[in-house]
């Protein structure tokens, strides 16, 4: 790389100047920098912003995932994928070689990629502190993670304030790219609204119309929006009627009282709007109590670790997943292969999100030619891609929500389950049948905020 001692010194001057808030000096220092760092994170043409410019020749990414709490299994798998992504960015391999033309496998813009990880404990406050530490102490240039929408929303707000990019991993609440959207946050994962759109017609065709349903939902941002969206689309599309919907605290370990109430309601279908360990627990306890004999169970959003934990209980249970290793296209199968080679296990949907979001960010940096956040954001806004196994996608500029397909799945009986294969894919709902305009649905409430260079 073209940097030398003097170059680093210049960055130090820029940073110091930025800290002092002396805009004029920043301009001067930038002008005097001269050649050498044009493409790098320390490019001379941009002022200090957030953790830009990067000091030294290593760019640090912050992986903020739940390593404890109800979503710990998801977090564990995300971390594996993040580490794989860092390895591929630095040394080549996986999608870096095959799917992302922008990436070289030799770091990003001549910077080696390093990472720090933190435990969100599936708790918004802990996650905010952890992200804050990554930004302040470790100088993370990008933060990614998730597995709880409350966590993702809290962290992306922080990132907007600190002017550090947040590549949301697993967050499914409508609010993430709706009322709580930010300029510095991007989301690949679809939301509860699209789950409702994808699932309602399938449920109607399977179980008929004129049914009554009952919902138990996790009592925070995510569960509330799943409950609202499922109610909206089951009523509008399937013609069903909601008997009642009841909130359950996040991290509940015994759902028996709630489940008994649902079973005694006389409804035909029971929706369990729980995720991760909570989802595995509630569906298992429903089956243990024999509730599935009188009611159809639906888990609107699920994933592989959840299905693994729930085992036989998911037989015949419909839901949607972020991604699944059974999806038959080149990027999906390549990811399955490299992940399996590295960890000897089948990757989950959250792992695919983690891996793809890290590469997505790195590729945007390469296209921008700089780590300067507003330029990277502009590269991602409206970006069209088809390289992460979910078909053609658009990262929409108006709300930073990916417009993509949604796989609808149904749980397999235990006898047909094997490692990594817990459900059959019923259909991959095309993005043309899903979504909403920029002035409708959750996007209508989105105001992205500042780039930081206005």
């Amino acid at each position, binding site marked *: 790389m073209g940097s030398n001692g003097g170059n680093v010194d210049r960055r130090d001057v820029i940073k110091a100047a930025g800290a002092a808030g002396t805009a004029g000096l920043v301009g001067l220092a930038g002008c005097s920098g001269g050649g050498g760092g044009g493409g790098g994170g320390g490019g001379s043409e941009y002022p200090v912003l957030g953790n830009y410019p990067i000091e030294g020749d290593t760019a640090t990414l912050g992986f903020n995932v739940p390593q404890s709490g109800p979503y710990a299994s998801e977090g*564990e798998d995300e971390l594996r994928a993040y580490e794989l992504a860092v390895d591929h960015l630095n040394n080549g391999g996986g999608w870096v070689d095959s799917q992302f033309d922008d990436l070289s496998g030799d770091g990003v813009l001549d910077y080696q990629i390093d990472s720090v990880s933190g435990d969100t404990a599936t708790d918004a406050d802990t996650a905010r502190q952890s992200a804050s530490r990554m930004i302040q102490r470790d100088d993370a240039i990008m933060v990614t993670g998730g597995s709880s929408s409350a966590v993702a929303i809290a962290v992306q707000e922080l990132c907007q304030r600190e002017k550090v990019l947040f590549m949301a991993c697993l967050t499914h609440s409508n609010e993430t790219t709706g009322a709580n959207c930010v300029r510095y946050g991007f989301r690949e994962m679809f939301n509860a609204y699209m789950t409702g759109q994808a699932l309602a017609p399938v449920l109607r065709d399977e179980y008929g119309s004129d049914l009554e349903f009952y919902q138990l939902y996790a009592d925070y941002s995510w569960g509330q929006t799943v409950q609202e969206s499922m109610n909206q689309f089951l009523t509008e599309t399937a013609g069903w009627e909601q008997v009642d919907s009841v909130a359950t605290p996040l991290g509940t370990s*015994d759902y028996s*009282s709630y489940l008994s109430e649902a079973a005694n309601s006389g409804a035909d279908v029971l929706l369990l709007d729980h995720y991760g360990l909570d989802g595995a627990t509630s569906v298992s306890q429903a089956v*243990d*109590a*024999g*509730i599935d004999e009188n009611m159809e169970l639906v888990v609107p959003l699920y994933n592989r670790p959840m299905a693994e*934990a729930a085992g036989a209980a998911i037989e015949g249970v419909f839901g949607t997943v972020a991604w699944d290793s059974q999806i038959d296209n080149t990027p999906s199968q390549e990811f399955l292969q490299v992940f399996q080679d590295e960890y000897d296990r089948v990757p989950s949907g959250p792992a695919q999100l983690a891996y793809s979001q890290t590469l997505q960010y790195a590729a945007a940096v390469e296209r921008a030619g700089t780590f300067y956040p507003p330029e990277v954001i502009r590269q991602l806004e409206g970006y069209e891609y088809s390289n992460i196994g979910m078909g053609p996608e658009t990262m929409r500029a108006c709300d930073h929500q990916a417009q993509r397909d949604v796989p609808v799945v149904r749980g397999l009986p235990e006898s047909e389950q094997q490692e990594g294969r817990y459900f059959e894919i019923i259909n991959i709902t095309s993005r043309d049948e899903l979504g909403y305009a920029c002035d409708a649905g959750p996007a209508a409430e989105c105001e992205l905020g500042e780039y930081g260079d206005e």
Partner: protein
Amino acid sequence: MSFHIEAITVLLNGLQQGAIYILLAVGLSIILGTLKFVNFAHGALYLIGTYAGLLFALEINLTSGLLQEWGYGTLGLDLGYIPALLLVPVVVFVVGLAMERWVVEPFKDRPDTDQILVTFGLAIVVQEVFRIFFGSSSLPFSQPAWAEGAPQVPFLAGIPISSWRYYVILITAVLVAIVYLLVEYTDFGLVVRAGTRDPEMVELLGIRLSRPYIAVFGIGAALAGVAGVVGGPLNPVNPTIGNDILVPAFLTVVIGGVGSIAGATLGGVIFGLTYAILVATFSSWAQVGLYAIAAVILLVRPQGLLGEEGVAP
């Protein structure tokens, strides 16, 4: 759905949820009442009981943790639930004896705060050791095949509660009765009760209290172990369960009254029923309501419902 089915469901749910707390609270209560020792590591004993139960009863596949890295991906003796129910109390009893010897004894005459600190610290160490070896992920602890689904007997048909939960109520009732008889109607119990009231006088009569005390601690620990085995299949199994269950267990003790087996039982029943009734009526207030009711009880009777004034430390 008819009212009586609804009412029976709530009643049974309440009794079952209370049952686990009763098993924990009886042990906590006799240890606190007899040895005057505040054991914040009681949840850790529950944790040990759950994992031991899982390893005796079933085979499990680990997906993370040191054991998995060392190549012990599949663990467990697969003996079934009945052997687990018999073996785990023995194991946790022995753990309890060791704890009495090495932790309780040195801290018995120290202030409550010291006891809380050392036992809470111990609980965290136990939790982290399990996390290191077994990983953070939850392990599946399925219910016994013979206790799955709602029981198909005429009176209980149509009530959406799995058979295992009836067994939990039954096992708790039997064990609490045994402990009650032991404390109330045997010489051992007489010495323990006398020691609770006036340890000096008992020692003056030539009876060494250290042996009954160590046994009391062992029995309390064994009950926590049983709670772990019967509660394991009802909840996800991961290293944090011990700490999660500690606060409700202590609450059960203080509602019922320290040192009283009947009190711990009553406390557990009130706790479970309150929760089940609140879920059925004002579900969003279930957690808050639980603590509100405990607060009201303690305002009216600071020594707990069946606690005796002066006995409680």
